[in-house]
């Protein structure tokens, strides 16, 4: 977490930085931890996990909207192709976890939520890395 905040504070101009990125990352890790506990306790995905996924998705959508607004304002990512690839993937991850967890109402559903919530921060950090050098 400290590393992530250090990265974001260093690059002040990014639209995908600061709280906007830190909140989804923290939330995602929180859900992953909770889902891991559920997995170890042989529990199926509970309400908290699904609610967490919904909040996570909302946070990611906010991030997407802010990014699109910044794009409209003339800012451009360093690698547009990768950036939009990562952005599209990122927004799809929580729904994927939701659908798969609904299909698997056992401890393995919680394991799926845990796995996808561990992948989400990685994708988010990669997303930040593709927006390194800013023209404006």
């Amino acid at each position: 977490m400290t590393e992530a905040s250090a990265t974001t504070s260093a690059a002040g101009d990014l639209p995908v930085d600061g709280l906007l990125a830190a909140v989804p990352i923290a939330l995602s890790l929180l859900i992953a931890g909770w889902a891991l506990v559920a997995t170890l306790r042989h529990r199926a995905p509970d309400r908290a996990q699904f609610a967490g996924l919904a909040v996570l998705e909302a946070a990611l959508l906010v991030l997407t909207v802010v990014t699109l607004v910044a794009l409209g304002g003339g800012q451009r990512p360093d690698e547009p192709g990768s950036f939009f690839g990562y952005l599209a993937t990122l927004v799809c991850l929580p729904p994927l976890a939701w659908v798969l967890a609904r299909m698997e109402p056992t401890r393995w559903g919680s394991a799926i939520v845990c796995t996808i919530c561990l992948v989400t921060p990685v994708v988010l950090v990669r997303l930040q890395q593709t927006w390194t050098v800013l023209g404006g």
Partner: protein
Amino acid sequence: MADPQPTERPGPAERPQPAGRPPADRTRTNSGPGRLLIAVYLLFAIAATSRAGLQIATRFEAAPMAYLLSALAAAVYIVAAVGLGRAGRTGRLIALACCTVELVGVVGVGAVSRARPELFPDETVWSGFGSGYGYIPLVLPVLGLLWLWRTRHDLDLAAASRSRPSRVAPDQSFGPPAT
């Protein structure tokens, strides 16, 4: 005789429902741990497809072989996810073929990219034994094969329900009891 990995991991899950439950529920290829496997395969299918698509679309001439290999890896991940998801005889055969291709691919490409780096000027999913992806590309096919091995009674159970006892008998000598 059964390898410790598959017996250890899903073992605790089965503990609460020992003999009473029909074993068909425990050994389905596409549920339980299998569904987690499918989820990871889906993630890699997305990652490899978008990476290969981007590389081929933007700078194909830079490293055509590496990018075509990325595309092949992406296709294998997609087909493996579909095979595992469908289960059944065909699905399991597809998954078996895909896991084998993956294992050969990740080990082969890993070795070649280590020995002759000039052949792979750009990264692929399988370069350096999948080090760019936390070595998961190396572990995933092994887990896939172990899971296919562990759920091998899936087909025998299906065969047994069609009353072909000769198919079941030899397999009862090892692994979890089939009946």
